[in-house]
């Protein structure tokens, strides 16, 4: 068994710069628990109750991959896959498509400086499973990655590699509710004029302690939009590290969390503008109830010379009781002089006027609080590109809010 520092990974300690609010210990545990042995067990592992999320997307036209512990299932004859999407199951020791070498580990490696992220490195070095996807053209239907059974049972290290070719377009929806926990890394390369839309849904009651990293390199005139929806797990950290090395690139990251009880969810976002004319947006909202904790740490970093950068960052929480808390670290680090960047963080309780207005129309206090909470969160869905997906997420979000309040 590996332990924190013996393994040579120098895992973060409690209190380290980006670990002031969330304790890293449990992620060390999850990372070390995830071993090949567990992989075998998973096949027979009792599947936790299906996540609400899985059902919700059923009525959308999509290309779906269901990930199993040692393979992944999809319709091999689907012409959309044959023609424009190369997708491989990345199972170490079995087959490894050559194209991924260009991306694998490279993006993460590039961005290790100035802040090393040992958990991500650990995942990349040790993961046995993952998914490699290369969009070569515009893929109109969303691609759904359903972690299904893979997330049942023990902890997992999952390393996904995603490449979007020049001018190609990919919408990827990752659905899955880890049962015990996961240390997962996505490495994403969006080539010039490419468009990558990403939605992660990890919803439903579980015991999961999950750590997600998404490393992305967004090239000239390319765009990345990533939205995440979390709720139901005791501990989640969602980390985005995005680099815009060329001009006119665009990165949006957004997320919603519904927290109820003794849970913590942490969004940590680091966007580095290197090229000219880049735009970035960070939009996060959380509803926190019964002592839930929300964390947001976000940085817009603008290199010297990255003129005309437009950076926006806003994190907001609605606290439904006095024990809940929202801990934030919004940062701007700007070395160019001709930029427009803003950041803001707010934290409040339900607005009394709005509550009274709804109640005066016959809506009960509890229902009014649910409606206002949902309204608060729903605004973030505007960040998502696909209206069809938004419509589906609205239903899911409604269920989540009604369950948590």
């Amino acid at each position, binding site marked *: 068994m590996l332990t924190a520092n013996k393994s040579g990974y120098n895992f973060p300690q409690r209190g380290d710069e980006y670990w002031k609010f969330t304790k890293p210990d449990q992620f060390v545990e999850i990372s070390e628990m995830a071993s090949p042995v567990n992989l075998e067990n998973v096949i027979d592992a009792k599947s936790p109750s299906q996540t609400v999320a899985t059902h919700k997307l059923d009525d959308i036209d999509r290309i779906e991959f269901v990930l199993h512990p040692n393979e992944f299932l999809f319709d091999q004859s689907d012409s959309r896959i044959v023609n424009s999407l190369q997708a491989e199951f990345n199972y170490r020791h079995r087959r490894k498509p050559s194209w991924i070498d260009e991306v694998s580990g490279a993006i993460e490696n590039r961005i290790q400086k100035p802040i090393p992220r040992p958990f991500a490195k650990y995942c990349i070095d040790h993961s046995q499973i993952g998914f490699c996807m290369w969009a070569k053209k515009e893929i109109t239907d969303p691609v759904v990655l359903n972690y299904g059974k893979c997330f049942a049972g023990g902890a997992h290290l999952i390393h996904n590699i995603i490449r979007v070719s020049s001018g190609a377009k990919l919408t990827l929806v990752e659905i899955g509710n880890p049962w015990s926990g996961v240390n997962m890394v996505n490495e994403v390369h969006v080539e010039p004029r490419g468009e990558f839309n990403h939605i992660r849904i990890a919803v439903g009651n579980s015991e999961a302690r999950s750590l997600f990293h998404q490393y992305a390199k967004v090239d000239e005139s390319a765009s990345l939009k990533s939205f995440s929806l979390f709720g139901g797990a005791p501990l989640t950290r969602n980390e985005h590290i995005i680099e815009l090395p060329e001009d006119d690139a665009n990165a949006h990251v957004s997320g919603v969390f519904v927290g109820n009880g003794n849970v913590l969810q942490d969004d940590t976002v680091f966007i580095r503008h290197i090229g000219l004319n880049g735009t970035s947006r960070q939009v996060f909202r959380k509803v926190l109830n019964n002592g839930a904790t929300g964390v947001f740490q976000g940085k817009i970093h603008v290199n010297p010379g990255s003129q005309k950068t437009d950076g926006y960052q806003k994190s907001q929480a609605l606290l439904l009781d006095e024990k809940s808390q929202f801990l934030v670290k919004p940062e701007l680090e700007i070395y160019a002089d001709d930029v427009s960047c803003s950041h803001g963080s707010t934290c409040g309780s339900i607005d*009394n*006027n*709005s509550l*009274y*207005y*709804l*109640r*005066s*129309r*016959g*809506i*009960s*206090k509890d*229902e009014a609080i649910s*409606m*206002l909470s*949902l*309204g*608060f*969160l*729903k*605004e973030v869905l505007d960040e998502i590109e696909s209206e069809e997906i938004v419509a589906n997420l609205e239903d899911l979000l409604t269920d989540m809010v009604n369950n948590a309040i």
Partner: protein
Amino acid sequence: MLIIENLHAILEEESKPILKGVNLRVGPGEVHAIMGPNGSGKSTLSYVISGRDGYEIPEGSITYNNEDILELEPEERAALGFFLAFQYPVEIPGVGNMTFLRTAFNAIKKARGEEEISASDFLKLVRTKAKELNIGPDLLKRPVNYGFSGGEKKRNEILQMAVLEPSLCVLDETDSGLDIDAMKQVSAGVNALRSPDRAIIVITHYQRLLNHIQPDIVHVMVDGGIVHSGGAELALDIENNGYSNILSNLN
């Protein structure tokens, strides 16, 4: 129907007495107008009737059909048939106007033990009423009052009233911010609700609204109390002479 006796209300956060002994009796089928200078307590009265918190009631009572309602929550009063068209309707981002209407409608139906209606029938009902009030379909899709113009907000209040069909309607300065056409539409909406078992209280500054919604009784509120009541002609008198006559008679 509605009986208010010696009602006192203190604004809790300021420990400030606002209502200082209001007496008002409104019977079924009646339309009452309450006029009065700014700051006399008209909106406060409407809030206390509808159950807003933040007020202490040291003295007095409000009964509705012989039931003491002062302890009831706003939603319970709504279920009894109370409706307040707000002077300043609240903007609620993220909550769709249609969703809001349907939730309110169903909540009230449920509280009254009545059957809910199907989604499509409800949609038809709202569309018809909205059309009468010149409220376009886009306003139904948008978040409640969010980014609405002053007039749109007021019309949206009347739409809610028309859909929820309350038995006691209180309209707080619904005419302010309305142009003449909008005022006609809104008044028509209110008049359509006039019925022998429904009471309406219209709070206004201006007599002109009362040309469209003809009151049975006009009250004048000054400094937290109703100081004078009369017929519809009282409104005209106020329009022509202001409150000075009434105030000097008081002194």
